[in-house]
Protein backbone atom coordinates (compact mmCIF):
# COMPACT_ATOMS: atom_id res chain seq x y z
CA UNK A 1 0.00 0.00 0.00
CA UNK A 2 1.59 3.27 -1.07
CA UNK A 3 1.59 6.09 1.46
CA UNK A 4 1.88 9.85 1.38
CA UNK A 5 5.37 10.79 0.30
CA UNK A 6 7.36 13.83 -0.72
CA UNK A 7 6.35 13.24 -4.33
CA UNK A 8 2.77 13.85 -3.37
CA UNK A 9 3.75 16.95 -1.44
CA UNK A 10 5.56 18.25 -4.50
CA UNK A 11 2.48 17.58 -6.62
CA UNK A 12 0.33 19.49 -4.13
CA UNK A 13 2.79 22.40 -4.17
CA UNK A 14 2.45 22.68 -7.94
CA UNK A 15 -1.32 22.54 -7.58
CA UNK A 16 -1.09 25.31 -4.97
CA UNK A 17 0.66 27.46 -7.56
CA UNK A 18 -2.24 26.84 -9.93
CA UNK A 19 -4.64 27.83 -7.19
CA UNK A 20 -2.74 31.08 -6.69
CA UNK A 21 -2.55 31.67 -10.43
CA UNK A 22 -6.25 31.14 -10.93
CA UNK A 23 -7.00 33.41 -7.96
CA UNK A 24 -4.88 36.18 -9.44
CA UNK A 25 -6.60 35.86 -12.82
CA UNK A 26 -10.02 35.88 -11.17
CA UNK A 27 -9.12 38.89 -9.04
CA UNK A 28 -7.76 40.95 -11.93
CA UNK A 29 -10.57 39.95 -14.30
CA UNK A 30 -13.22 40.33 -11.63
CA UNK A 31 -11.72 43.65 -10.57
CA UNK A 32 -11.83 45.14 -14.07
CA UNK A 33 -15.34 43.86 -14.80
CA UNK A 34 -16.53 44.62 -11.28
CA UNK A 35 -15.26 48.20 -11.46
CA UNK A 36 -17.23 48.70 -14.67
CA UNK A 37 -20.35 47.26 -13.05
CA UNK A 38 -19.85 49.42 -9.93
CA UNK A 39 -19.60 52.50 -12.15
CA UNK A 40 -22.74 51.46 -14.03
CA UNK A 41 -24.45 50.91 -10.70
CA UNK A 42 -24.06 54.61 -9.82
CA UNK A 43 -24.39 55.95 -13.37
CA UNK A 44 -26.86 58.76 -14.08
CA UNK A 45 -28.69 56.59 -16.61
CA UNK A 46 -31.46 54.58 -15.02
CA UNK A 47 -31.17 51.80 -17.62
CA UNK A 48 -27.49 51.29 -16.80
CA UNK A 49 -28.17 51.32 -13.07
CA UNK A 50 -30.93 48.73 -13.36
CA UNK A 51 -28.88 46.54 -15.68
CA UNK A 52 -25.97 46.60 -13.23
CA UNK A 53 -28.28 45.81 -10.33
CA UNK A 54 -29.82 42.86 -12.16
CA UNK A 55 -26.35 41.58 -13.05
CA UNK A 56 -25.25 41.74 -9.41
CA UNK A 57 -28.43 40.04 -8.21
CA UNK A 58 -28.04 37.27 -10.78
CA UNK A 59 -24.41 36.60 -9.91
CA UNK A 60 -24.95 36.78 -6.16
CA UNK A 61 -28.10 34.68 -6.32
CA UNK A 62 -26.60 31.70 -8.16
CA UNK A 63 -24.12 29.31 -6.59
CA UNK A 64 -20.66 29.49 -8.17
CA UNK A 65 -20.94 25.79 -8.91
CA UNK A 66 -23.98 26.36 -11.16
CA UNK A 67 -22.26 29.34 -12.79
CA UNK A 68 -19.28 27.13 -13.65
CA UNK A 69 -21.51 24.39 -15.06
CA UNK A 70 -23.38 26.97 -17.16
CA UNK A 71 -20.13 28.31 -18.62
CA UNK A 72 -18.72 24.86 -19.20
CA UNK A 73 -21.77 23.64 -21.13
CA UNK A 74 -22.63 27.07 -22.54
CA UNK A 75 -19.30 27.52 -24.30
CA UNK A 76 -19.70 24.07 -25.82
CA UNK A 77 -23.06 25.16 -27.21
CA UNK A 78 -21.47 28.21 -28.80
CA UNK A 79 -19.57 25.76 -30.98
CA UNK A 80 -16.21 25.48 -29.27
CA UNK A 81 -15.66 21.82 -28.75
CA UNK A 82 -12.86 21.49 -26.29
CA UNK A 83 -12.85 24.39 -23.84
CA UNK A 84 -9.52 24.60 -22.01
CA UNK A 85 -10.31 24.10 -18.34
CA UNK A 86 -8.36 27.17 -17.33
CA UNK A 87 -10.49 29.33 -19.61
CA UNK A 88 -13.79 28.05 -18.27
CA UNK A 89 -12.56 28.31 -14.68
CA UNK A 90 -11.16 31.82 -15.17
CA UNK A 91 -14.33 33.03 -16.84
CA UNK A 92 -16.57 31.59 -14.13
CA UNK A 93 -14.52 32.98 -11.26
CA UNK A 94 -14.16 36.34 -13.02
CA UNK A 95 -17.93 36.70 -13.32
CA UNK A 96 -18.39 35.53 -9.74
CA UNK A 97 -15.79 37.97 -8.39
CA UNK A 98 -17.12 40.87 -10.48
CA UNK A 99 -20.60 40.52 -8.99
CA UNK A 100 -19.35 40.73 -5.43
CA UNK A 101 -16.58 43.29 -5.97
CA UNK A 102 -19.01 45.59 -7.80
CA UNK A 103 -21.33 45.62 -4.81
CA UNK A 104 -18.47 46.12 -2.30
CA UNK A 105 -17.03 49.00 -4.30
CA UNK A 106 -20.37 50.64 -4.94
CA UNK A 107 -20.85 50.77 -1.18
CA UNK A 108 -17.41 52.28 -0.70
CA UNK A 109 -17.88 54.89 -3.41
CA UNK A 110 -21.22 55.91 -2.02
CA UNK A 111 -19.86 56.08 1.52
CA UNK A 112 -17.68 59.05 0.53
CA UNK A 113 -19.54 61.93 2.22
CA UNK A 114 -22.05 63.69 0.02
CA UNK A 115 -20.45 67.06 0.73
CA UNK A 116 -17.35 65.89 -1.13
CA UNK A 117 -19.41 65.27 -4.26
CA UNK A 118 -21.11 68.63 -3.89
CA UNK A 119 -17.86 70.47 -3.26
CA UNK A 120 -16.35 68.93 -6.38
CA UNK A 121 -19.36 70.06 -8.35
CA UNK A 122 -19.11 73.59 -6.91
CA UNK A 123 -15.50 73.72 -8.07
CA UNK A 124 -16.78 73.03 -11.57
CA UNK A 125 -14.92 69.76 -11.90
CA UNK A 126 -16.16 67.54 -14.70
CA UNK A 127 -17.76 64.21 -13.81
CA UNK A 128 -14.53 62.45 -14.76
CA UNK A 129 -12.37 64.78 -12.67
CA UNK A 130 -14.72 64.48 -9.73
CA UNK A 131 -14.49 60.70 -9.86
CA UNK A 132 -10.75 60.37 -10.40
CA UNK A 133 -9.51 63.31 -8.33
CA UNK A 134 -11.95 63.50 -5.43
CA UNK A 135 -14.12 60.44 -4.94
CA UNK A 136 -11.97 57.45 -5.92
CA UNK A 137 -8.86 58.40 -3.92
CA UNK A 138 -11.04 58.49 -0.81
CA UNK A 139 -13.10 55.44 -1.77
CA UNK A 140 -10.00 53.30 -2.37
CA UNK A 141 -8.92 53.81 1.23
CA UNK A 142 -12.29 52.59 2.47
CA UNK A 143 -12.41 49.78 -0.09
CA UNK A 144 -9.02 48.20 0.59
CA UNK A 145 -9.83 46.12 3.71
CA UNK A 146 -13.02 44.50 2.34
CA UNK A 147 -11.35 43.93 -1.03
CA UNK A 148 -8.43 42.10 0.55
CA UNK A 149 -10.96 40.18 2.63
CA UNK A 150 -12.78 39.17 -0.54
CA UNK A 151 -9.52 37.84 -2.03
CA UNK A 152 -9.75 35.13 0.61
CA UNK A 153 -13.16 34.18 -0.75
CA UNK A 154 -11.74 34.01 -4.27
CA UNK A 155 -8.87 31.74 -3.21
CA UNK A 156 -11.26 29.44 -1.37
CA UNK A 157 -13.71 29.34 -4.25
CA UNK A 158 -11.08 28.35 -6.79
CA UNK A 159 -11.49 24.93 -5.16
CA UNK A 160 -14.72 24.60 -7.17
CA UNK A 161 -12.85 24.96 -10.47
CA UNK A 162 -12.28 21.22 -10.31
CA UNK A 163 -15.79 20.67 -11.70
CA UNK A 164 -14.72 22.05 -15.07
CA UNK A 165 -11.63 19.86 -15.05
CA UNK A 166 -9.11 22.35 -13.70
CA UNK A 167 -6.50 20.74 -11.49
CA UNK A 168 -5.87 22.93 -8.47
CA UNK A 169 -5.25 22.11 -4.82
CA UNK A 170 -8.55 20.44 -3.97
CA UNK A 171 -8.63 18.44 -7.19
CA UNK A 172 -4.99 17.43 -6.74
CA UNK A 173 -5.90 16.21 -3.27
CA UNK A 174 -8.73 14.17 -4.73
CA UNK A 175 -6.43 12.68 -7.38
CA UNK A 176 -3.85 11.64 -4.80
CA UNK A 177 -6.63 10.25 -2.66
CA UNK A 178 -7.82 7.93 -5.40
CA UNK A 179 -4.33 6.50 -5.69
CA UNK A 180 -3.36 6.04 -2.04
CA UNK A 181 -6.65 6.45 -0.15
CA UNK A 182 -5.50 8.33 2.91
CA UNK A 183 -8.18 11.01 2.87
CA UNK A 184 -7.58 12.37 6.35
CA UNK A 185 -3.86 13.02 5.84
CA UNK A 186 -4.29 14.35 2.34
CA UNK A 187 -7.12 16.77 2.98
CA UNK A 188 -5.56 18.04 6.19
CA UNK A 189 -2.45 18.88 4.18
CA UNK A 190 -4.57 20.44 1.43
CA UNK A 191 -6.36 22.49 4.09
CA UNK A 192 -3.00 23.62 5.49
CA UNK A 193 -1.96 24.81 2.02
CA UNK A 194 -5.14 26.86 1.70
CA UNK A 195 -4.69 28.21 5.21
CA UNK A 196 -1.15 29.32 4.40
CA UNK A 197 -2.45 31.25 1.40
CA UNK A 198 -5.57 32.71 3.03
CA UNK A 199 -4.50 33.49 6.58
CA UNK A 200 -1.95 36.18 5.66
CA UNK A 201 -4.60 37.84 3.49
CA UNK A 202 -7.15 37.75 6.33
CA UNK A 203 -4.63 39.19 8.77
CA UNK A 204 -3.63 41.87 6.30
CA UNK A 205 -7.27 42.81 5.73
CA UNK A 206 -7.86 43.11 9.46
CA UNK A 207 -4.79 45.24 10.10
CA UNK A 208 -5.78 47.53 7.21
CA UNK A 209 -9.19 47.87 8.77
CA UNK A 210 -7.71 48.73 12.14
CA UNK A 211 -5.46 51.39 10.61
CA UNK A 212 -8.38 52.88 8.75
CA UNK A 213 -10.46 53.07 11.90
CA UNK A 214 -7.71 54.78 13.85
CA UNK A 215 -7.10 57.46 11.25
CA UNK A 216 -10.81 57.98 10.74
CA UNK A 217 -11.43 58.62 14.39
Amino acid at each position, binding site marked *: MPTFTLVHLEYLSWAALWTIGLSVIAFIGGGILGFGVAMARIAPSRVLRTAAMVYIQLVQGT*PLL*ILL*FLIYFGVAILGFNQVPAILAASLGLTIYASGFLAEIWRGCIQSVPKTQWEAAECLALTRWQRMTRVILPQAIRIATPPTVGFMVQIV*KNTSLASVVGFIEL*AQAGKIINTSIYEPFTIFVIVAIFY*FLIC*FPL*STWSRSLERKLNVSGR
Partner: protein
Amino acid sequence: MSYQFDFLALLPYWREFALGVWLTLELSAIATVLGFVFGTLCAIGRSGGSPAVKWAIAAYVEVIRNTPLLVQIFLVYFGIATLGVHLSANFAAVAALVVNVTAYTCEIVRAGIESIHKAQLEAAECLGLSRAQTYWHVILRPAVERVYPALTSQYVLLMLASSITSQISAEELTAVANRIQSDTFRSFETYIVVGVLYILLSMVVRIGFGLFGLLVFVRRRKLGTSL
Protein backbone atom coordinates in the same frame (compact mmCIF):
# COMPACT_ATOMS: atom_id res chain seq x y z
CA MET B 1 -25.38 29.33 -33.32
CA SER B 2 -27.18 26.19 -34.36
CA TYR B 3 -28.07 24.90 -30.93
CA GLN B 4 -31.74 24.10 -30.40
CA PHE B 5 -32.86 24.90 -26.90
CA ASP B 6 -35.24 22.32 -25.57
CA PHE B 7 -36.62 23.13 -22.15
CA LEU B 8 -39.62 20.87 -22.77
CA ALA B 9 -37.39 17.83 -22.37
CA LEU B 10 -37.09 18.83 -18.72
CA LEU B 11 -40.80 19.08 -18.10
CA PRO B 12 -41.26 15.42 -17.06
CA TYR B 13 -38.67 16.03 -14.36
CA TRP B 14 -40.53 18.82 -12.57
CA ARG B 15 -41.19 16.62 -9.57
CA GLU B 16 -37.48 15.98 -9.12
CA PHE B 17 -36.66 19.67 -9.41
CA ALA B 18 -39.29 20.40 -6.77
CA LEU B 19 -37.87 17.69 -4.55
CA GLY B 20 -34.39 19.16 -5.04
CA VAL B 21 -35.61 22.60 -4.00
CA TRP B 22 -37.22 21.10 -0.92
CA LEU B 23 -34.09 19.13 0.01
CA THR B 24 -31.89 22.21 -0.39
CA LEU B 25 -34.23 24.22 1.83
CA GLU B 26 -34.26 21.45 4.41
CA LEU B 27 -30.49 21.04 4.37
CA SER B 28 -29.88 24.76 4.74
CA ALA B 29 -32.59 25.19 7.37
CA ILE B 30 -31.07 22.53 9.62
CA ALA B 31 -27.58 23.93 9.11
CA THR B 32 -28.82 27.47 9.76
CA VAL B 33 -30.57 26.65 13.04
CA LEU B 34 -27.74 24.49 14.40
CA GLY B 35 -25.12 26.94 13.11
CA PHE B 36 -26.88 29.84 14.79
CA VAL B 37 -27.12 28.04 18.15
CA PHE B 38 -23.52 26.80 18.17
CA GLY B 39 -22.22 30.04 16.67
CA THR B 40 -23.89 32.13 19.35
CA LEU B 41 -22.51 29.86 22.08
CA CYS B 42 -19.04 30.25 20.55
CA ALA B 43 -19.49 34.02 20.44
CA ILE B 44 -20.42 34.04 24.13
CA GLY B 45 -17.42 31.85 24.91
CA ARG B 46 -15.17 34.06 22.90
CA SER B 47 -16.25 37.27 24.59
CA GLY B 48 -16.52 36.00 28.16
CA GLY B 49 -14.77 32.63 28.53
CA SER B 50 -11.45 31.75 30.07
CA PRO B 51 -8.32 32.57 28.03
CA ALA B 52 -7.97 28.93 26.93
CA VAL B 53 -11.57 28.80 25.69
CA LYS B 54 -11.14 32.13 23.93
CA TRP B 55 -7.99 30.95 22.21
CA ALA B 56 -9.51 27.65 21.14
CA ILE B 57 -12.59 29.32 19.65
CA ALA B 58 -10.47 31.94 17.89
CA ALA B 59 -8.30 29.21 16.37
CA TYR B 60 -11.33 27.25 15.23
CA VAL B 61 -12.88 30.32 13.60
CA GLU B 62 -9.64 31.20 11.81
CA VAL B 63 -9.11 27.67 10.50
CA ILE B 64 -12.65 27.42 9.15
CA ARG B 65 -12.70 30.89 7.62
CA ASN B 66 -9.40 30.36 5.83
CA THR B 67 -10.06 26.97 4.24
CA PRO B 68 -12.56 26.14 1.48
CA LEU B 69 -15.89 24.56 2.31
CA LEU B 70 -15.19 21.86 -0.28
CA VAL B 71 -12.12 20.68 1.62
CA GLN B 72 -14.04 20.78 4.91
CA ILE B 73 -16.75 18.63 3.35
CA PHE B 74 -14.16 16.11 2.08
CA LEU B 75 -12.52 16.02 5.49
CA VAL B 76 -15.78 15.34 7.29
CA TYR B 77 -17.01 12.81 4.74
CA PHE B 78 -13.86 10.85 3.89
CA GLY B 79 -11.92 11.71 7.00
CA ILE B 80 -14.43 10.40 9.49
CA ALA B 81 -14.94 7.30 7.35
CA THR B 82 -11.29 6.37 7.88
CA LEU B 83 -11.86 6.54 11.61
CA GLY B 84 -14.27 3.65 11.11
CA VAL B 85 -17.50 5.58 11.51
CA HIS B 86 -19.64 5.47 8.42
CA LEU B 87 -21.68 8.59 7.76
CA SER B 88 -24.38 8.94 5.14
CA ALA B 89 -23.59 11.61 2.57
CA ASN B 90 -26.44 13.76 3.81
CA PHE B 91 -25.39 13.55 7.44
CA ALA B 92 -21.83 14.46 6.49
CA ALA B 93 -23.16 17.35 4.42
CA VAL B 94 -25.16 18.77 7.32
CA ALA B 95 -22.26 18.25 9.71
CA ALA B 96 -19.80 20.03 7.41
CA LEU B 97 -22.18 22.92 6.77
CA VAL B 98 -22.80 23.32 10.50
CA VAL B 99 -19.07 23.28 11.29
CA ASN B 100 -18.59 25.89 8.59
CA VAL B 101 -21.43 28.27 9.35
CA THR B 102 -20.87 28.10 13.12
CA ALA B 103 -17.54 29.84 12.64
CA TYR B 104 -19.03 32.63 10.52
CA THR B 105 -21.98 33.07 12.90
CA CYS B 106 -19.58 33.26 15.84
CA GLU B 107 -17.65 36.06 14.17
CA ILE B 108 -20.79 38.03 13.29
CA VAL B 109 -22.50 37.65 16.67
CA ARG B 110 -19.26 38.50 18.45
CA ALA B 111 -19.17 41.79 16.53
CA GLY B 112 -22.73 42.38 17.77
CA ILE B 113 -21.80 41.62 21.37
CA GLU B 114 -18.81 43.94 21.20
CA SER B 115 -21.03 46.73 19.92
CA ILE B 116 -23.08 46.70 23.15
CA HIS B 117 -22.13 49.78 25.13
CA LYS B 118 -20.52 49.28 28.52
CA ALA B 119 -23.04 51.62 30.11
CA GLN B 120 -25.77 49.12 29.22
CA LEU B 121 -24.04 46.49 31.34
CA GLU B 122 -23.62 48.91 34.22
CA ALA B 123 -27.29 49.82 33.97
CA ALA B 124 -28.21 46.14 34.06
CA GLU B 125 -26.08 45.70 37.18
CA CYS B 126 -27.70 48.70 38.83
CA LEU B 127 -31.11 47.21 38.12
CA GLY B 128 -30.02 44.05 39.92
CA LEU B 129 -30.30 41.75 36.89
CA SER B 130 -28.65 38.38 37.28
CA ARG B 131 -25.80 37.34 35.02
CA ALA B 132 -28.11 35.18 32.92
CA GLN B 133 -30.73 37.93 32.67
CA THR B 134 -28.09 40.44 31.64
CA TYR B 135 -26.77 38.11 28.97
CA TRP B 136 -30.19 37.37 27.57
CA HIS B 137 -31.92 40.77 27.70
CA VAL B 138 -29.11 43.28 27.58
CA ILE B 139 -26.38 41.59 25.55
CA LEU B 140 -27.62 38.83 23.28
CA ARG B 141 -30.95 40.08 22.03
CA PRO B 142 -29.81 43.58 21.07
CA ALA B 143 -26.55 42.13 19.69
CA VAL B 144 -28.34 39.69 17.41
CA GLU B 145 -30.84 42.35 16.37
CA ARG B 146 -28.00 44.64 15.40
CA VAL B 147 -26.19 42.06 13.27
CA TYR B 148 -29.36 40.49 11.88
CA PRO B 149 -28.80 41.83 8.32
CA ALA B 150 -25.27 40.39 8.27
CA LEU B 151 -26.58 37.06 9.56
CA THR B 152 -29.24 37.06 6.86
CA SER B 153 -26.63 37.52 4.12
CA GLN B 154 -24.49 34.80 5.66
CA TYR B 155 -27.37 32.32 5.69
CA VAL B 156 -28.31 33.12 2.09
CA LEU B 157 -24.69 32.39 1.18
CA LEU B 158 -24.95 29.16 3.17
CA MET B 159 -28.00 28.13 1.16
CA LEU B 160 -26.09 28.75 -2.06
CA ALA B 161 -23.00 27.02 -0.70
CA SER B 162 -25.03 23.93 0.16
CA SER B 163 -24.80 23.20 -3.59
CA ILE B 164 -21.18 22.19 -2.94
CA THR B 165 -22.36 19.20 -0.93
CA SER B 166 -23.40 17.65 -4.27
CA GLN B 167 -19.68 16.85 -4.61
CA ILE B 168 -20.08 14.05 -2.06
CA SER B 169 -23.45 13.24 -3.67
CA ALA B 170 -25.59 14.50 -0.83
CA GLU B 171 -29.18 14.81 -2.00
CA GLU B 172 -30.04 18.39 -2.86
CA LEU B 173 -30.87 20.60 -5.84
CA THR B 174 -27.48 20.53 -7.57
CA ALA B 175 -27.16 16.77 -7.18
CA VAL B 176 -30.65 16.39 -8.67
CA ALA B 177 -29.60 18.63 -11.55
CA ASN B 178 -26.47 16.58 -12.17
CA ARG B 179 -28.61 13.49 -12.43
CA ILE B 180 -31.22 15.05 -14.69
CA GLN B 181 -28.64 16.42 -17.09
CA SER B 182 -26.99 13.04 -17.45
CA ASP B 183 -30.42 11.52 -18.09
CA THR B 184 -31.54 14.02 -20.70
CA PHE B 185 -28.26 15.32 -22.18
CA ARG B 186 -29.85 18.76 -21.83
CA SER B 187 -27.06 20.08 -19.61
CA PHE B 188 -27.27 23.77 -20.41
CA GLU B 189 -31.05 23.92 -20.05
CA THR B 190 -30.93 21.97 -16.79
CA TYR B 191 -28.43 24.33 -15.21
CA ILE B 192 -30.35 27.39 -16.43
CA VAL B 193 -33.47 26.05 -14.73
CA VAL B 194 -31.53 25.27 -11.58
CA GLY B 195 -29.82 28.67 -11.65
CA VAL B 196 -33.22 30.37 -11.80
CA LEU B 197 -34.45 28.14 -8.98
CA TYR B 198 -31.48 29.16 -6.82
CA ILE B 199 -32.13 32.84 -7.52
CA LEU B 200 -35.76 32.38 -6.50
CA LEU B 201 -34.66 30.42 -3.44
CA SER B 202 -32.28 33.16 -2.34
CA MET B 203 -35.09 35.72 -2.70
CA VAL B 204 -37.45 33.50 -0.70
CA VAL B 205 -34.85 32.98 2.03
CA ARG B 206 -34.16 36.72 2.19
CA ILE B 207 -37.86 37.57 2.45
CA GLY B 208 -38.33 34.78 5.00
CA PHE B 209 -35.60 36.23 7.18
CA GLY B 210 -37.11 39.69 6.83
CA LEU B 211 -40.51 38.50 8.02
CA PHE B 212 -38.96 36.44 10.80
CA GLY B 213 -37.06 39.53 11.91
CA LEU B 214 -40.28 41.52 12.12
CA LEU B 215 -41.81 38.75 14.18
CA VAL B 216 -38.92 38.40 16.60
CA PHE B 217 -37.68 41.94 17.05
CA VAL B 218 -40.76 43.54 18.59
CA ARG B 219 -39.04 46.81 19.33
CA ARG B 220 -38.05 47.28 15.72
CA ARG B 221 -41.56 46.47 14.55
CA LYS B 222 -43.17 48.97 16.91
CA LEU B 223 -40.72 51.83 16.50
CA GLY B 224 -39.72 51.16 12.91
CA THR B 225 -36.09 52.05 13.59
CA SER B 226 -33.01 49.91 13.66
CA LEU B 227 -30.89 49.75 16.77
